[in-house]
């Protein structure tokens, strides 16, 4: 498999790239406004259908603009200011770090982006460094380019009429580091991504926290098309995505062979979209009636595809899912394909009529959508192209990484980026002196890990995990704030508890962390209760404090615990428990009453002490 990486990482400058807003402030009020973006199709050249759909009529973009984090520049109501000097300095430093050739003049460009994430309709971006390299242990990867660009607006929600973006993130300076493609397995991919990520982290030039580093991963197998996977936010996703893509693309290679074996060729795709509304109107199937409501039933023969839509050698790799995702781009809820037609309760007689009208034999399949207007036809035309592309193995496309490390179809891969000069920004001269002096002196990864381990008195491995995670800053802040809580406990909440919760889809946040540590610090809960309280707080979106109150988890004193132990022991005397089993039984009964209310270690000590007092040493 061949893979390449595009790493986007936010610089931690105080101000944005083209204005003086501080993105880390908290907004006290916001305003909303609505916009439309347009690019005429004639100038887009070979326009990709997704973009065409996005700029199609009736799509309104809503922007939420805060009073502190964005200004008239983000609202596209004022020209950009001169680029942030600190950001330019950082970009030159990173170019030097990767031994890239630094340009003599930086020219900002406008890269057309019509999904609404940029109020201007383009992203401002400039090449600072070219042709660098990254060497890490035995691994070497070429760096194509280092670009300084502005981050896009943050998608808040997708409504029926269009997306809503918050402008707080728009304009934060980003570096985009693009590697050359390398041949290898998922393991190597992870090593490269991790290596570059770790190196960047060590520079101290970048923001930390979730979403501050995002990677696009380009993957291809054999000589087939390049698949661009967007939105890989976490390192552990990289390997999973690469493994998944290798399997998925290999399946598509296999699929093309199956089609060839079935005798399917290009000419078989001279099929027409057939309107089957009249046939489906006669169906008494509840599902079909619901889907039909006022819509047309449009169908397309899928030559040779019988049984191939639902087949998935790896979960989520089935063609049917890709087709459904494609239809969603056009605003349709989904697609019906022949492999799952039996689920719709359609009468056999009607199905026969469908087969007849579509001229379908045993090896063929079909796809069907319920919709109307030109959009429905365009959608099916696109689906047809996707089916035909199956003859030639995995097609070039853009996919989106999922949390679990699979990928979903996002849109066909756009052609070359549409760019033109940003005339509002003057060219920036990079002098030989700047190139020579903007360099980074930094400690190695090992040294940094050792420093953290030493400073916070935590094991080496824990320090490394923290440095790798997005949460090192939360950790250091928490250690400072809660001096009486052992740093290992704080680290374990961040590394283990958070991770367990994340697996269940619960995203921990800083305030929850600090609230729970505060409760432990005040003695309101014991550290054993952290996991359960956090889970309840996050899953039900209620404050840590309310969870503690609700659960009655106010901790008990050592004296109270001691009394409970004494009373349980007293009650148990009559049971004549064997001496060697006493500890286990008593400990169990005591913990039932005090779990989460006091440190388990103290209970252990007290139970042992009282048993020995009563029954002597074992």
């Amino acid at each position: 498999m061949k893979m390449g990486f595009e790493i986007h990482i936010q610089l931690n400058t105080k101000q944005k790239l083209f204005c003086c807003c501080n993105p880390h402030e908290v907004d006290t009020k916001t305003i909303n406004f609505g916009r439309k973006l347009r690019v005429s199709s004639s100038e887009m050249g070979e326009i990709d259908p997704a973009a065409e759909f996005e700029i199609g009529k009736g799509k309104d973009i809503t922007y939420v603009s805060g009073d502190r984090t964005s200004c008239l520049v983000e609202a596209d109501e004022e020209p950009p200011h001169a680029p942030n000097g600190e950001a330019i300095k950082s970009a030159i430093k990173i170019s030097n770090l990767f031994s890239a050739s630094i340009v003599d003049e930086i020219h900002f460009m406008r890269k057309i982006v019509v999904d609404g994430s940029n109020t201007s309709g383009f992203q401002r971006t400039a090449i600072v460094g070219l042709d660098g390299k990254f060497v890490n242990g035995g691994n070497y990867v070429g760096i194509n380019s280092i670009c300084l660009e502005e981050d896009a607006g943050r998608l808040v929600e997708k409504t029926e009429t269009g997306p809503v973006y918050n402008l707080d993130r728009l304009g934060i300076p980003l570096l985009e580091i693009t590697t050359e493609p390398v041949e290898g397995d998922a393991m190597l991919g992870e090593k490269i991504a991790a290596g570059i990520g770790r190196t960047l982290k060590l520079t101290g030039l970048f923001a930390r926290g979730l979403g501050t580093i995002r990677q696009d991963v380009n993957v291809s197998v054999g000589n087939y098309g390049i698949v661009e996977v967007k939105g890989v936010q976490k390192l552990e996703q990289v390997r999973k995505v690469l493994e998944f893509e290798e399997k998925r693309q290999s399946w598509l290679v296999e699929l093309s062979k199956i089609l060839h074996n079935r005798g399917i060729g290009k000419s078989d795709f001279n099929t027409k979209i057939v309107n089957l509304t009249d046939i489906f109107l006669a169906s008494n199937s509840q599902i079909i009636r619901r889907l039909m409501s006022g819509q047309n039933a449009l169908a397309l023969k899928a030559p040779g595809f019988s049984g191939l839509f639902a087949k998935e050698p790896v979960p989520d790799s089935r063609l049917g899912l890709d087709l459904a995702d494609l239809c969603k781009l056009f605003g349709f809820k989904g697609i019906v394909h022949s492999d799952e037609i039996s689920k719709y309760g359609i009468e056999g007689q009607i199905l026969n009529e469908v087969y007849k009208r579509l001229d379908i034999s045993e090896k063929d399949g079909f796809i069907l959508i319920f919709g109307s207007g030109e959009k429905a036809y365009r959608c099916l035309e696109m689906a047809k192209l996707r089916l035909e592309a199956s003859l030639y193995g995995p097609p070039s496309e853009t996919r989106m990484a999922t949390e679990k490390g699979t990928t979903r179809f996002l849109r066909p891969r756009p052609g070359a980026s549409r760019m033109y000069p940003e005339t509002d920004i003057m060219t920036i001269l990079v002098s030989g002196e700047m190139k020579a002096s903007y360099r980074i002196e930094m400690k190695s990864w090992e040294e940094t890990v050792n420093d953290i381990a030493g400073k916070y008195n935590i094991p080496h491995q824990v320090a490394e995990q923290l440095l790798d995670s997005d949460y090192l800053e939360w950790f250091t802040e928490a250690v400072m704030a809660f001096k009486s809580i052992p740093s290992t406990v704080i680290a374990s909440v961040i590394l283990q508890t958070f991770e367990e919760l994340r697996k269940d889809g619960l995203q921990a946040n800083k305030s929850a962390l600090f609230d729970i540590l505060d409760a432990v610090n005040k003695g309101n809960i014991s550290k054993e209760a952290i996991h359960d309280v956090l889970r309840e707080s996050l899953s039900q979106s209620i404050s840590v404090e309310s969870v503690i109150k609700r659960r009655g988890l106010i901790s008990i004193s050592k004296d109270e615990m001691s009394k409970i132990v004494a009373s349980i022991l007293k009650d148990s005397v009559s049971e004549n428990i064997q001496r060697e089993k006493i500890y286990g039984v008593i400990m169990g009964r005591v913990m039932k009453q005090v779990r989460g209310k006091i440190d388990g270690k103290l209970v252990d000590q007290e139970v042992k002490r009282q048993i020995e007092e009563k029954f002597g040493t074992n």
Partner: protein
Amino acid sequence: MVQQMKPGQLVQLQYNGKLLEGLIMPRSLYEDTMHITLKLKNGYNIGLDIDKVRLVKVIEHEATAQTEDEKEYNEIGNGPRVLILGTGGTIASKVDYRTGAVKPAFSAKEIVDMVPEIGNIASISVKTIMNELSENIKPENWSIMSNEVYKAFNSGYKGVVIAHGTDTMHYSASAVSFAVENPPGPVIFVGSQRSSDRPSSDSAINLQGAVTFAAKSNASGVFVAMHAGLDDNLVAVHRGTRVRKNHTSRRDAFESVNDIPFAYVDIENSIIKHENEAIPKGKIKLMPNFLAKALIFKFHPGISESITNAVFKGDLLSVIIEGTGLGHVSREIFPYIRSAIDNGKFVGMTSQCIWGSVGMAVYETGRDLLAMGVVPLGDMLSETALVKSMWALGNGLDLPSVMPLNLRGEIASRRPVEK
């Protein structure tokens, strides 16, 4: 070797020991000559020091931009006939992403291609009458615009849209307001605050607003159509004599001063909501001459005596004072004003407060100025007063009697509470 590199060439270069391939781009006037701009295959431009690059080979000598047939197709679209007059700048333009060049659309076909919605509102014809940035527009240009508007109505157009740079659009709108009396339909100036080559440009919405108004409103007069707010759905139509550019960059920079907007156009539904009425009071009449012997004199503390002297004792025939508050200047200016009026010059008073009317009977300074013969111009914008006096001078009208009159809605005796 270096001398051989010319803009337009597709070249292979050596830079820092590495090979680069790209298109050599023209440099702008303000970029130095020690660097070249190279457009790489991925679309990015970079600047390289000429002394550090070595030309390896020229791959293609002249990668010229494709030129298109620029025939004027008129009467594109369906609906009432609307003429769009181009004065410069670009109401619609397209980008050649290969070279990065922005090419304005001048023909009706190109404009309707860019903003297809207007083809459903009106039958569009386009005529380019000049090509000037709005800061370079002169009173002679106002005369040309006025003549063209007059001709258009005589040729049976329902309405006229004038695409104009925004900086001085309100001066031109005011000028045409005075020059063309009783137009049988609306004349609408339109511009854009975000250049039309960007996806977020306001030009398409503004143009839709202008064309909708030109095609559907029966109002007689000259107007400016621009964004009403930050949203891309509402266009405000301002009276040409009442409008002012009040912001350097916002989409809603144009505001009606001392008046509410004349109308609003709801773009989504193509509906006009009139706040006012204007029906022609007679036959269309053209008075297109302007004499530029007038000036706005903005008084401020510590104003230079030599400038004051030059203004009032030079060859100007009309001075529009932008006084402080209700219409005042310091007493040091009095002798200059008095001598100018004594020499037959017109001196009118407006306020630098922008909003509100002058009121020269309130304080002694105002009464002194009135006694000298300074003509109070009510709530007229100083820019409108300037243009009006140039027009009055150009057409031989008596300024002291014409200037305070309400000819085109430029002055009012009452002002709405709502701003």
